[in-house]
């Protein structure tokens, strides 16, 4: 009844090419953004900020980055954690060594650019290696980068434990100290990043990625250059992942060691992309929400029912339920939460008259 495109005529090309061609979609997205900026800070507690909202937003951004590579360009990567680490440590070193540039936006962008450079480097094998061979080959970057940040002392500023910490964060004179401030900064960056990503994937470059994904030989024959297309996908994807890594380190952790970006992080982000839906930006958000919320729920669940368990048993059970849920979701909806979202929208269009 409410959600109809009937009667919404496009009279200009600009109107026809907007991101959300349906008025109700535009209003909905606008309402979500406004609510996130204005309504959430009114009731959120520090716990909700640091344990739910901040991880959700940052990991969504990483998931968008990985989705560009896996979902849009079809190059499976298991090195996400490594690229996040590059972003984090590059940002850390700029922040540490060039105090004049103590502006988080600049620091994060630097982290992203460095991650993009490393991403291009490790993307080169994708020109020769395909499919699962590539997936395993990208693990090389994960392990190499893990090792690099654990062993090269200069990168961690010669701290004896190898763990580094940041303090005194500001953006154009705005001190980002409280969880609420951090949340707002992250939210702003994620909104901008999503907008950029959306415009990239629906434009010329995104179409060339999808052509390569669907069949790279055919795409090459009709004139897409695989070198440029694949490497831009690696670069853009790693840029997003690098910025997410820098945000994770600076705004979520504050003090970290390379273990924060180990292979489990890579798998976590890949889960988000798959569960959310390959080749879908809304899916990246839904997947991130799912993966962030589920362990928290699993942790709380026995307490609600008054069952007391040892922490070791609890963590094992958590592993089991997590694994079972993943398998269950893949069986029920292999196209991810984004597909459910699309189905719901489709149903809403017809509601309440199904024909």
């Amino acid at each position, binding site marked *: 009844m409410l959600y109809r495109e009937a009667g919404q005529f496009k009279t200009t090309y600009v109107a026809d090419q907007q991101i959300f061609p349906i008025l109700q979609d535009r209003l909905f997205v606008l309402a979500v953004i406004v609510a996130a900026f204005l309504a959430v800070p009114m009731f959120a507690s520090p716990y909700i900020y640091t344990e739910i909202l901040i991880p959700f937003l940052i990991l969504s951004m990483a998931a968008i980055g990985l989705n560009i590579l*896996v979902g849009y360009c079809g190059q*499976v990567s298991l090195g996400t954690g490594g690229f996040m680490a590059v972003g984090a440590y590059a940002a850390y070193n700029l922040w540490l060594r060039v105090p004049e540039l103590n502006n988080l936006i600049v620091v994060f962008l630097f982290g992203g650019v460095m991650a993009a450079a490393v991403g291009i480097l490790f993307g080169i*094998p994708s020109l*020769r*290696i*395909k*499919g*699962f*061979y590539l*997936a*395993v*080959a990208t*693990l*090389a970057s994960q*392990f*190499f980068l*893990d*090792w690099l940040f*654990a*062993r*090269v*002392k200069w990168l961690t500023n010669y701290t004896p434990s*190898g763990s580094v910490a940041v303090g005194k964060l500001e953006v154009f004179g705005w001190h980002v100290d409280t969880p609420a401030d951090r949340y707002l900064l992250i939210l702003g960056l994620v909104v901008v990043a999503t907008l950029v990503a959306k415009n990239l994937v629906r434009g010329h470059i995104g179409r060339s990625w999808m052509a390569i994904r669907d*069949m790279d*030989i*055919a795409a090459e*024959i009709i004139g897409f250059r695989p070198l440029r297309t694949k490497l831009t996908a690696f670069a853009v994807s790693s840029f997003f992942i690098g910025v997410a890594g820098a945000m994770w380190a600076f705004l979520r952790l504050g003090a970290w060691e390379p273990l924060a970006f180990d*292979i489990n992080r890579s*798998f976590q982000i*890949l*889960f988000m992309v*798959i569960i959310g839906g*390959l080749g879908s930006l809304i899916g990246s958000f839904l997947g991130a929400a799912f993966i962030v919320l589920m362990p928290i729920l699993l942790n709380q669940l026995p307490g609600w029912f008054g069952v007391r368990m040892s922490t*070791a*048993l609890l*963590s*094992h*059970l*958590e*592993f*089991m*339920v*997590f*694994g*079972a*849920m*993943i*398998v269950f979701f*893949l*069986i029920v909806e*292999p196209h991810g939460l984004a597909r459910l979202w699309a189905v719901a929208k489709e149903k809403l269009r017809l509601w309440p008259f199904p024909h």
Partner: protein
Amino acid sequence: MLGPFLETLIGGLLTGVLYSLVALGFVLIFKASGVFNFAQGAMVLFAALTIARLSGEIDGKEVHLANFVVAAAILGVAVAFIGWYAWREYVARGAGPGERRKLQMLAAAGALVGGIAAYSYGKGAWPIWLAIAATAAIMGLLAYAIERLVLRHLVNQEGIILFMATLGIAYFLDGFGQTLWGSDIYKINLGLPKDPLFLFEGVFPGGLLVDPGELVAAAIAAGLVVVLAIFFQKTRVGRALRAVADDHAAAQSVGIPLNTIWLIVWTVSGLVALAAGLIWGAKLGVQFSISLIALKALPVLILGGFTSVPGAIVGGLIIGAGEKLSEVFLAPILVKQFDLAGGGIENWFAYMLALVFLLFRPQGLFGERIIERV
């Protein structure tokens, strides 16, 4: 100079055999079902934990009696099934409609006998051969559950979905094994000799130091490879497996049941995981980190080719040797040159080796040539 070099080389090759063993499990499943089975490492951990706890001395950390009874019941069912199958092959070929009933009775009887035996035996400290047999039966049941509950529902999905599903299985198995058996470090006592062995004392001053346990392990692995090769090349089931590996649709059209084949393949790779878990557990103790040897086996896999059994073996040897040699000879140079905080390059060296190799041969050492058509 030659002495230490050879020593490292032999140590590396012996470790490499173990990598091959894990990689072999991957290859079997990938060949037969196109599933990139990330759960292989978790299966190794699960098998090792089961053996260790079934055969372990009672060490304060007690295992629930129910676990023993269930393990024995599963073993009983497996024995009953195998016996029934052999009898059917021998006496009457083909199962009639009334057979199903008989089969269920038989399974129940097997379970009962096994359960009673385990109960009267008391808890703890089974002899190692009994523990291994029970674990083998459990791995078979696990394969059945995976095929029935997961794979069957994911037929015709893309490779990456199947891969993610096996990641989910890996998480589940890691949690399940530790819930069932506890998460401390356990020992498997195979009775392997511990004293170091010196070889070729006449050729080199002091001889070459070799761990006899590793030699035995390598021998077991080599034996397993031979058995598998015979199984694949000479038996009827092996031929069916190769047919499925070549072409699913064609195999199905000549009457090879795909689901049964998958069950067999997962069982076989479960048994390979058992062997790997046994050897690793005896060498390093059973703990969670065993599950990570899957990550060690992956470069072996891409180096050798996903679909090649000889590739898994040769790749394992190359990776094992390369890893150890690089750690002993290359790492100190790197550490000195770049002022690093310690070596530890073996974590990534194998991957880099495989990666560089792949740039020249994208299908791996023995992989099938990739032919692409539009």
